[in-house]
């Protein structure tokens, strides 16, 4: 599904990613862990097509195609989804209007006709229930005045509606209380399938107690210094990052 080879990137003069290798197969869940500032969001944003960081070496190949020349919207059409660490507020654009536009853009791309209002509403109501949000929520402007939990639920709601093949969740678990965390985990569990892959970025192993990863990668200063099975997350919880750094 996703093959990242020796990816290096810089923001301005500063090198952020220093040779990342990552191979995600269909149906797999990969966890990327690391401290603040290690480059996790940069990696996520680059897969989704943000141009803040510039590729200096290596490649990102998705479904057999190099992503380098693709716009963020083309990547979205091809099934990439990023749940943002810090979703931005977009005043005056309400969730319903926005999701309808996004969904229909995707349907048009695949030659399907647009969803009628009733079907859309039925579908979004089902998904709202999954992430434990009220119907009135979708009348609100995107991320405006949302609590931390609402922002993250809204990201998962969009994932459930847009049905991506590769979902990258950038610290979707941060700042959530235990109930919200369970709700989010439940959303991910429901969505999991043998065709769909996840990259779960986090710096706490907490979420991984609910969503079991196939692989765990530890990112330190722009490099994956260690990869392993789920037991790596448990070790990390017990011993902290210094344990790896010392090695």
């Amino acid at each position, binding site marked *: 599904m996703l093959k990242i080879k020796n990816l290096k990137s810089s923001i301005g003069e500063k090198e952020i990613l220093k040779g990342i290798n990552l191979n995600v197969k269909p149906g797999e869940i990969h966890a990327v862990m690391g401290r603040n500032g290690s480059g996790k969001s940069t990696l996520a944003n680059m897969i989704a097509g943000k141009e803040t960081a510039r590729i200096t070496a290596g490649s990102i190949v998705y479904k057999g195609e190099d992503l380098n020349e693709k716009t*963020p*919207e083309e990547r979205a*059409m091809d099934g990439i989804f990023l749940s943002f660490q810090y979703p931005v507020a*977009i*005043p*005056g*654009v309400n969730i319903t209007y926005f999701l309808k536009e996004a969904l229909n853009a995707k349907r048009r*791309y695949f030659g399907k006709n647009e969803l009628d209002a009733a079907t859309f509403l039925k579908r979004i109501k089902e998904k709202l229930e999954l992430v434990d949000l009220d119907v009135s929520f979708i009348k609100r402007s995107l991320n405006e005045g949302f609590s931390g939990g609402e922002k993250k639920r809204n990201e998962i709601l969009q994932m459930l509606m*847009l049905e991506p093949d590769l979902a990258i969740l950038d610290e979707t678990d941060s700042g959530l209380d235990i109930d919200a965390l369970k709700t989010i985990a439940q959303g991910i569990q429901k969505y999991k399938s043998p065709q769909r892959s996840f990259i779960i970025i986090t710096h706490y192993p907490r979420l991984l107690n609910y969503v079991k990863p196939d692989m765990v990668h530890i990112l330190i200063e722009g490099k994956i210094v260690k990869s392993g099975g789920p037991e790596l997350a448990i070790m990390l919880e017990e011993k902290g990052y210094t344990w790896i750094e010392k090695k």
Partner: protein
Amino acid sequence: MSLDFLKEEFFRLLERRNFEPDTLTQLRKQSFNQFLEKGFPTQKWENWRFTNLNRLKSKTFRTAGPEDIPDDIPDLEKYKISGINTIVIVNGYFQNKLSSFPEGIIIEPLLDYINSNPEKIDNESPNPFYNLNISFMDSGIAITIKKNTVINKPLRFIYLFTSLQDNVMFSPQIHIICEENSSAQILEQITGNIKGTSFFNLVGTLTLSPNSSLDYSRIIQDNGVSNQFADFNVLQEKDSRFSFFQYSEASKISRLDLNCDLRGEGSECDLMGLSLSDRSNHSDNHIWINHHASHCRSNQFFKSILKNESSGVFNGRTIVHKETQKSDAKQSNKNLLLSKKAVMNSNPQLEIRTEDVKCTHSSTTGELDDDALFYMRSRGLDLPRSQALMVRGFALEELKYVRNKNIYDYLLASLESWLK
């Protein structure tokens, strides 16, 4: 427009209107002299620093005459807003057959009103366009909302322009008197298929008696070819509530002077506007509020969206006078630049001469936020669509203050077609 030409036009007007009573003729003459003393503003004037009037001054505008009454009835379907009454004025001429009137409101032609209340016209103004209007005032209405009357249906007067090929000057006046405990919504619309460059120079005098409420909106859609000047003076007595909303689509030059005097305790005003500018058009909003009494609340909230090489000015000033208490004053101006060549001058000012006041002011001018654009694109919207949605959202944040659903829907449709 040379002053000599204006003088000739003025004498022609006096001749044509030789039936008018002497008081009115004198009023015109006085005003015209005041105008001549000041002349057109230049950019050296403090209140006109960012507005270049050369495009207006270089043209000549004749006054409208009976020959401008159109032969055929214009198609009003395009401007239909359901659930409201409409008074139709075509090329400056009132159209009785096309109009519908609400009950509980007295509507008089302006000149009748002035003849019976000559003292109602105030000749003093720092604004030469005001003096010019009084000198040339042609069409106009006076509306009185009777004591204790609540008018539920909005009343619109639509200034419709058709088939004018050359440059014409219009000088209408609007007087609205809200008597005690009355309430009304009034909508002014300036629109039509404007071809020649017209110069529309309007004066509005709005009086709100104790505990009255007036919701006044303006819609200006002139194909971006006319010059729109308006000078509104609002007087608010005790516990009155005034709200103002201007939706304006690019005129060549548009200038709004809105002066709101909170004279009576407990009076409140919300002054809002959305200016949409494109090409090389220029829009200028001067919003003045005076808190003369205690327990008053005022709010200015203006937005503009500027495309291409257009430019704009927001100059808001709220003065909270000495010896007033518990005042609440807010000012906000937000501008979205959609082109590198668009320019905005924003200057919200609070002038506080007392201690007991709660106030905030803010001003932001910028381009579309890259992070927000990336967010939308990452969901599959292409760049133009993402931009369109954001711009629409920016405008909706202002438009949502239009409380009447039918007027809101009409404006939303206008906005969407402007954005295309």
